[in-house]
């Protein structure tokens, strides 16, 4: 018997038992729905993560720490004490080794590295400008590897830093610092005020005592201050796909180093950095540079590492949803087996007749398996269509609720995974139909046709 004829007969007998067919396939549809949504959400999340990364991170950039434990959350638990506290930062029970200036210099000397920028700790007291109040501020190094949303003014192209006397301010400071609008602020001067506790050497104290000058002693105890002035080059806004919220005032690398050196002079933190970013020369694979640095003992992460980290999270979440979908499928498998067994019992005579007419057992078995496959097909189509309709109509709401930003959607439906899913469901249904089909194939036609 030709497969085409078997499939047509299978389709017809399902049509004759419409209610049963639809109810059985609805069970599969639940699984298909869950799996379609899981696939769409996984794809959407991956694409969104990719958008985030590509718009935030220069693929040629490396994040470098003193050793790899930094990227594993630091060393926890008791560690052997080291008197050299400058290389180690401790806090919250986590211990992190820090990069020293010589590390930075060594990395900067490499031929495959264009520039290295440590993350400077700048403890600025306030930001202000003439005739205005003082406001707290966090100053950071301008990251030339990130595209930012510029509201007013302009920033240099990627991989080029702003000038040493320039500053890029977040939007919030426009009104705080008394500007009418963002445009007015461009080119204006602001002051960042820094302080440090006095750092007094023994000889300085002895000299002051020898001079017996109260003013000299007082001046030794006075906090030292520094006022740094910058011209506003740009006002930056917050973008939906920005990973790093731009609430920081951004200054050039050199300025940041100067400010950091000022506030840390005489402390353990002087020229010690937890992390640095390095820009790999164009045309050089960041992964090879990473390997070289790792061999030297550094902890290094590339943009790709970060991507795979994000993808791991997405994949794990997707896996959980898929797990639920598979549970639903397992349930539906028993539904199919049950339905098909009943169908075989009901159609004992039909099976007997077909066998008497010379239909091979293999073909009888196939007839029932194809019926199961039809059920799987129907369930897959119903489930995925409902999922696509529901997903597409919910997407705008999800985007606005999760503030993913315009043009980004969480659920991305792709035809090929859905088609594959339906095919897999048909195969699963056929497998489920195997036992009832075998029962049908083994029926003795004489028994089946015995008239009572």
């Amino acid at each position, binding site marked *: 018997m030709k497969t085409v004829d078997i499939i047509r007969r299978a389709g017809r007998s399902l049509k004759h038992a419409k209610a049963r067919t639809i109810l059985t396939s609805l069970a599969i549809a639940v699984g298909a729905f869950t799996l379609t949504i899981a696939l769409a959400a996984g794809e959407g999340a991956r694409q969104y993560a990719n958008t985030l990364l590509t718009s935030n991170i220069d693929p040629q950039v490396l994040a470098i720490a003193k050793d790899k434990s930094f990227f594993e959350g630091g060393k926890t638990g008791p560690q052997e004490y080291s008197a050299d506290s400058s290389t180690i930062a401790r806090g919250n029970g986590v211990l992190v080794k820090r990069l020293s200036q010589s590390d930075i210099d060594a990395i900067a000397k490499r031929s495959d590295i264009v520039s290295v920028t440590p993350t400077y700790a700048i403890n600025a007291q306030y930001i202000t400008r003439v005739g205005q109040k003082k406001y707290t501020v966090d100053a950071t190094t301008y990251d030339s590897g990130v595209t930012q949303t510029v509201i007013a003014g302009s920033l240099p192209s990627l991989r080029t830093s702003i000038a040493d006397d320039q500053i890029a301010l977040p939007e919030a400071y426009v009104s705080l610092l008394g500007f009418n609008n963002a445009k007015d602020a461009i080119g204006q001067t602001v002051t960042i005020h820094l302080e440090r506790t006095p750092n007094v050497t023994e000889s300085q104290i002895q000299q002051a005592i020898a001079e017996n000058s109260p003013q000299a002693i007082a001046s030794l105890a006075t906090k030292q201050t520094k006022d740094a002035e910058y011209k506003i080059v740009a006002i930056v806004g917050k973008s939906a796909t920005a990973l790093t919220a731009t609430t920081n005032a951004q200054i050039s690398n050199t300025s940041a180093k100067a400010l950091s050196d000022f506030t840390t002079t005489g402390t353990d933190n002087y020229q010690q950095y937890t992390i640095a970013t390095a820009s790999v020369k164009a045309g050089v694979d960041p992964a090879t540079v990473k390997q070289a640095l790792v061999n030297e003992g550094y902890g290094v992460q590339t943009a790709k590492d970060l991507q795979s980290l994000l993808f791991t999270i997405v994949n794990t979440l997707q896996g959980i949803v898929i797990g639920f979908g598979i549970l639903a499928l397992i349930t539906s498998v028993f539904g199919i087996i049950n339905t098909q067994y009943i169908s075989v019992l009901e159609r004992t005579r039909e099976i007997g007749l077909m066998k008497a*007419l010379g239909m091979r*057992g293999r073909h009888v078995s196939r007839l029932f398996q194809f019926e199961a496959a039809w059920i799987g097909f129907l369930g897959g189509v119903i489930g995925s269509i409902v999922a696509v309709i529901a997903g597409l109509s919910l997407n705008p709401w999800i985007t606005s609720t999760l503030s993913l930003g315009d043009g980004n959607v969480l659920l991305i439906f792709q035809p090929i995974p859905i088609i594959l899913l339906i095919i897999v469901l048909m195969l699963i249904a056929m497998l489920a139909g195997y036992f009832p089909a075998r029962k049908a194939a083994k029926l003795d036609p*004489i028994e089946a046709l015995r008239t009572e």
Partner: protein
Amino acid sequence: MIEVKGVTKTYGKKQNAFIALDDINFVIPDGASVAIVGKSGSGKSTLMHAMSGLDRPEKGQVVIDGIDILKLRQKAVDRFRSEKIGFIFQSFFVQANESSYDNVALPLEIGNLSGRARKKRVIEALQVVGIEEKEKQKARNLSGGQKQRLAIARAIVNRPKIIFADEPTGNLDSTTGATIEKLLFGLNKKSGSTLVIVTHDEDLAAKCDMRIYIKDGKIDQIVSEVK
């Protein structure tokens, strides 16, 4: 020619063994109409099953056109039934949910005949039994007589050499039964196929060229009017 030689069929084992067929021997010439007559439980149905390759008796031979069908592999027996045998049953066994057309098409589908040839044969068979206008109707909507006509159409559509009819008029009233009988004998004469009717109805048996009487699994008597 159908030669049945020493066919013996036993049900059950040892002490409980029940001999359904005991050393049956006869020869049916091609194109004959044959009645296998016996009471219920006499073994006449079992004999039909053995002759049509549905059942495998443990002893004996059923030689049809020189081939012992009891020695064939299952696949070959299936093909033999599909190509050379037509069945008509007392309870019709038409597929109620299928249209007349699809009922009659089933043996051709099993026999791998497709396309235009299949369609032509189905329509022809429906015309022969006189229900061509019911082609698209579901079998369940047909009357008893029409159902048996449909079953006959299904039995002849693959142009079999032998048609087995198990009490073909048993579920029909006498008028309808008479037309079905006429149809069966007419086909037998016209197409030259062998007709084997299993029945306990003496009147029906009397219309056949040859009558094989079965009693308790043994041949009681063979009456032949075949030249």
